[in-house]
Each structure stands twice: as C-alpha cells, then as structure tokens.
C-alpha cells in the first residue's frame, strides 16, 4: 500500500514541478537558461516541493534537501553526470521531502506532548509524593509474655507515604502523610462503662501553610494550620524516617504494652508526656537568621480526635482547643541550637486520646539543645529536658473517667502529678575508612512519672549501630539499624508492687530495623 501511495505521490509532485518549471521557463527564459546550465536540477523542484509540503523550517533537524556546502548535493551531481535520470532524481528528492516532513511531524507531536506535560501539577511542584519511611522491624523483648504472645516479632514499623506541593508564593506548602501500617482504630474514653472502638484515621499529618505577606518572611514566615509533628523539642519534631534510634523516647510514650496498669500513684499505665501530633494553628518565623520562634494553639487531644468531630452538629471531641504553646530556638550556627518551649492549658480525662492525661491544669516546660561541631562534622550530640504537670485522675485511653474526683469517677484515682524526663544522645558517623557509612549511637534517658514519689523511675541506655546504604537527608535515607536497650524500671512508688518479669520497660530488648526513604 505504501508503495502505491508513494508512487502516486511522486507522480503528483513531478507533475507540479514540471508545470511550475514550464511557467518559469516561459516567463523568464534567461533565468531558466542560466539555471539549466549551472543549478538546473536543484533550484525549481526544491522550491516547488517545499511549497506543497509547507514545512516549517524553524523546527526539527536541518532539512535533508538543503543544498550542502559547495552548492550541490550528491543527487544533483549524479544527475549532472548523467548517472541518474530526472525521474530518479525527482524520486530521491521526494523521498527526502517525505522523510523531512515525517520527522517534522514527529517533532511537532513531541512538542505538543511536551506542552501538555509541562502543565501537569506533578511537574510544577504543585503535587509531589514520596516514601517517608518504610521500616521492617525485628524486635525481641526479654519480658514474660501472656499466652498467645511472643517475645520476638517481625513487623512493619512504618509504611508512610507523604504528599506535598506548593501552590503559590502565598500558599507555599500543603502536606499530607498517610500511615498505611495502621488506621489506628482507637477506643474512646467514655465517662463510665466500657469503651468501644470509635475512630480510625489513615492520615497522621495534613496541614496548610500560608505566607500572608512575602516581604515579612522570614521574620514572619508562615502560618501553619492542620495536624503535624508538634514543635516540642527535637525527637517529637523529627520524622520517624530520620530518627537515630528505633524506639521512641520515653517523653513520647512509656508504660503499658503488657506492663503494669494505671494506679493511684499516677506511676503506671501508658503515659504520653508529649504527644507527637495534634491539631493546631501557629505562626512561625526566624529573626536575624538566629532566633526562630513558634507561637500557636492546639487541641491537646492527639491525632485521633479528628474522628469524633461531628460533621453535622459541629460538636468536637474533648480538650478542644485548650493549650497554647511557644518555642524560641536560638541558633549558634546553621545546625546547632538551644530551645525553650512552653505549653500551657488544660486537659481532660473524659474523651481523651492521650495516655496519662488528667482533668485540670496542664503545663510543660522544655529545654533542648543540639551541637554539631564544624570541625568534626560526623559528630552530633543533642538532648532534651522536660517537666510538666498533669491533672488529677489521669487515665489511659479507653478507661472510663469523668472529672477530677479521685475515687468515684473512674480513672486512675491519682492526684495531679508533676512529671519529669530527660535524655541525651550522641552519635558519630564515619565518613571515610573501613567503617565509612557506619554510625554509632548512644542514648541515656530517664522518666520520672511522679516527682513526689520515690522508686518509680524509668531509665534506659541504648547503644546502636547504623549502616547507611544511602544517606542524603532529608530526601533519601536507606539504612539498617541495630539497637540494644538496657532498660530498668525501679517500681511504681510506695505501696504498689511491680512485677518486673512481665514489665517490658524493666527488661532488656534489642531491635533490628531496615528502612527505605525516598522523596
């Protein structure tokens, strides 16, 4: 078929060329004569065929029919020498025209697709996605476990996808993080009676940034609203994909997990002294490139609280909004700093989604630091110190509680407690030699659930070794981590016995975790 079309096309072009050549010969005999002696084969047919195809000359590769340097092409030369006939010459030129037109059409198609794809949001930084952390974990805890459970476990610790984009200079970022490892089906904390599974959320983070006046940035950089890691210290604000140890520090969560339950001393059960995420609106900025600040207000009821907001009535869950916070961070250089954080407000036990919160006044005071010397870039040390008060009758999530009364309204029955915790972590990354890409880590921490009690202290030493397959934080980090934890729990305070054999926070543990991160 193509051969037939090709022949017809050749004949058509030949006819047109001959007609125009005849016209030119009649109207300008002298010019035609000149052409016939010097450039007769190349001039007229080229012009004709180009006109019929109307090929735009500015696109595509250099045309195959352009006269080469020296003014004469190979087929012209062959025609002049009589090696090929005029028909053959015309066929060659037509084939060349066809190829050029075909190339141009293809390039036009590519240009069209390029124009289409260039406006795709994913290529304009409006929509991006990445793998925040995919972590496979093997863990072993020495504690005695109940029937049906095991000291050893294989699990997916995190399966987090992150989505983000920049819509404009005034809306510099939107952000969502999905945790596919668990939808976190969480029990509510009713006023009385049994709790029931109430909320589940896929997302862990979702926020909008607004930069109201460009010229005010970075002094007043952004207003952020949504749910995200709270600006409380270092660990809380560090993504799980960039943490230096496998376990969360005690300031984010301690107790529970098969260990002793809540008690009248306020020393047992799970306690989340600083929640990692919450719903908030705050203002952030940096002054003179040295003093960074955050001022905001938050729900103070963890990320699950979104699930109990009624879409029809608008009535929200407990503790909303009841705490303000500020953080001032003073930089010594680009990466070393010291910070002061304050949280003030109230908390509730009824309806809470944060373990260890009571009814009444709530506060936290924290100081943190990080030092990364320029003369020893692989070394870093950082730490945090926190102290704060939880209201009375603190309860673990899912245990009914109704107010501050100590014996008649559920909860732990404990009076309000002052809690305190601190840690210090040091690490060294080998950047050359046989241990290149290995990082050694040591961390020590303490958690005192009630500063007025003795014999209730949690302590932990963690020694770790990390090997980085890829280490380009914050975008990429693939690594394998090994942590051994020397755990000790001195007790639950006066008059309450601790069975250390079944308390996972009183028994050593080790973990091996493989992580991928790419965005």
């Amino acid at each position, binding site marked *: 078929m193509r051969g037939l079309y090709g022949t017809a096309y050749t004949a058509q072009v030949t006819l047109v060329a001959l007609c125009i050549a005849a016209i030119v010969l009649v109207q300008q005999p002298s010019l035609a004569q000149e052409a016939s002696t010097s450039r007769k084969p190349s001039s007229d047919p080229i012009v004709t065929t180009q006109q019929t195809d109307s090929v735009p000359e500015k696109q595509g590769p250099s045309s195959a029919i352009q006269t080469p340097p020296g003014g004469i092409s190979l087929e012209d030369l062959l025609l002049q020498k009589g090696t090929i006939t005029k028909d053959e010459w015309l066929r060659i030129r037509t084939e060349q025209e066809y190829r050029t037109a075909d190339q141009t059409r293809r390039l036009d198609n590519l240009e069209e697709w390029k124009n289409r794809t260039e406006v795709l949001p994913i290529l304009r930084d409006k929509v991006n996605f990445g793998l925040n952390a995919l972590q496979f974990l093997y863990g072993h805890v020495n504690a005695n476990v109940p029937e049906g459970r095991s000291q050893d476990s294989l699990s997916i610790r995190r399966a987090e996808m992150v989505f983000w984009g920049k819509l404009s200079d005034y809306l510099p970022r939107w952000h969502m993080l999905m945790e596919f490892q668990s939808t976190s089906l969480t029990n509510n904390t009713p006023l009385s009676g049994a709790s029931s599974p109430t909320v589940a959320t896929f997302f862990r983070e979702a926020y909008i940034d607004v930069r109201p006046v460009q010229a*005010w940035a*970075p*002094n*007043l950089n952004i207003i*952020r609203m949504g749910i995200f890691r709270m600006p409380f210290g270092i660990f809380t604000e560090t*993504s799980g994909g960039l943490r230096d140890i496998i376990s969360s520090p005690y300031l984010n969560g301690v107790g529970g997990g098969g260990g002793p339950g809540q008690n009248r001393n306020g020393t047992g059960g799970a306690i989340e002294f600083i929640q990692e995420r919450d719903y908030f609106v705050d203002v952030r900025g940096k002054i*003179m490139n040295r003093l960074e600040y955050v001022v905001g207000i938050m729900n103070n009821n963890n990320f699950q609280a979104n699930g109990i907001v009624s879409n029809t009535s608008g009535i929200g869950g407990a503790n909303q909004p009841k705490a303000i916070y500020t953080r001032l961070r003073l930089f010594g250089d*680009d990466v070393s700093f010291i910070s002061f954080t304050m949280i003030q407000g109230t908390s509730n036990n009824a309806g809470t989604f944060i373990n260890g919160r009571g009814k009444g006044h709530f506060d936290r005071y924290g100081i943190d630091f990080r030092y990364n010397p320029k003369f020893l870039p692989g070394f870093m040390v950082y730490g945090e110190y926190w102290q704060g008060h939880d209201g009375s009758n603190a309860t673990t999530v899912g245990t009914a509680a109704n107010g501050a009364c100590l014996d008649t309204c559920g909860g732990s029955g404990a009076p309000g407690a002052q809690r305190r915790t601190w840690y210090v972590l040091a690490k060294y990354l080998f950047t050359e030699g046989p241990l290149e890409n290995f990082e050694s880590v040591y961390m020590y921490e303490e958690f005192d659930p009630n500063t007025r009690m003795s014999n209730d202290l949690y302590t932990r030493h963690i020694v770790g070794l990390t090997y980085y397959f890829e280490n*380009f934080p914050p975008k990429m980090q693939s690594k394998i981590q090994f942590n051994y934890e020397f755990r000790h729990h001195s007790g639950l305070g006066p008059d309450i016995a601790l069975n250390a054999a079944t308390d996972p926070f009183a028994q050593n543990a080790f973990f091996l975790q493989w992580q991928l991160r790419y965005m």
Partner: protein
Amino acid sequence: MRAIISLLILSLAMASACAHPYKVFPSKVMEDVDRNFDFSRWRMMTDGSESKKVQLGGRIVQSHASGDTVTIVVGQLPIVDYPAYGPKDNGKNNGDFVIIYQGQIERPDLQPGNRIMAVGTTHPPKVITVNDLSRSFPIVMAQCLHFWNTQGRDIADFPFYEAGYVTLRQETVCVSTPTP
C-alpha cells in the same frame, strides 16, 4: 496570659522591624562588587567585557574537583531577600555559568540542586564538558562561596520541611589569597 501574648507579639514585631537583612559574606569581601551587573548581557558578550567583581547565585548543575581546583557548573538564579535570603528558583532557565574555586570543598556541599552564591571576578569563557557535551561557559573566579544544602528545594522550604523539622546546612568558604 493575654498580656504575655501581647508582649510576645509586640516583641516579635519590633524585632522584625529592627532586623538587619541577613548576608552571608563578610562585608570586606563585598567591597567593589558591581551591584548592577547584567548577567544576561555578560553571558552574551563575555569576550569583549572587562573583568568585574560580581555576586552571582544559582543552582549547582554539576561539579568537578581536581587537586585544589573545584569547577562548578551553575544554573543562574536571582538572589532575593525574601521569603529567604539567597538564590530563588523562578521557574525559568536563565542560563548557566561556571564557578572556579581554588580550594577544598566538602562533597555534600557540591550535590546537584544545592543552592550556591559566589563573589568573584568575571573571566572569559572556557569550554567545559557537561553530560558529555562540551560547551563554552562564562567564568567566575570565586573569592568566596556560600552553599545551601537544599538538594534541589528552595531555601525558604526549610526548616519546617518534609515530615518533620530539618535544619538547612550551610557553608561559607573563601580562598586565602583572592584570585586576581
């Protein structure tokens, strides 16, 4: 409580108003820098133009270290004061140039996509090979360099970035004896 908040806001507003613009190079290095330097014109007419002291910024495209000489191919970006001081991606291809620095630079600072700013003198073009293609680039012999380790992102994206808080690593280096 309201008084504390009001005081805090007032303090921040005053501090913002009094804040000096952030600069990364010593003021002595910035002396004699041509503030009205026309990058586009320089790219087009490097042969005929005389050597000038300039400050240029951009995004690292490629780099190569050989001995004590580091050659950095940079896609030029405008230097802005806000939302964060430094080169800002304006979504346009403004043209490339090459920075030559006599000294040592840490490898992480030279990652493609990092933002860079240089103070130095302009020189006639040189042929540099980028992605197996040899091209002629206008040259800046750098006296001082400043790096933002952004890995392709804008400076203003930091530190409240990704799923957490990431401080932006920066580095300033200067040659011991300024290049003529």
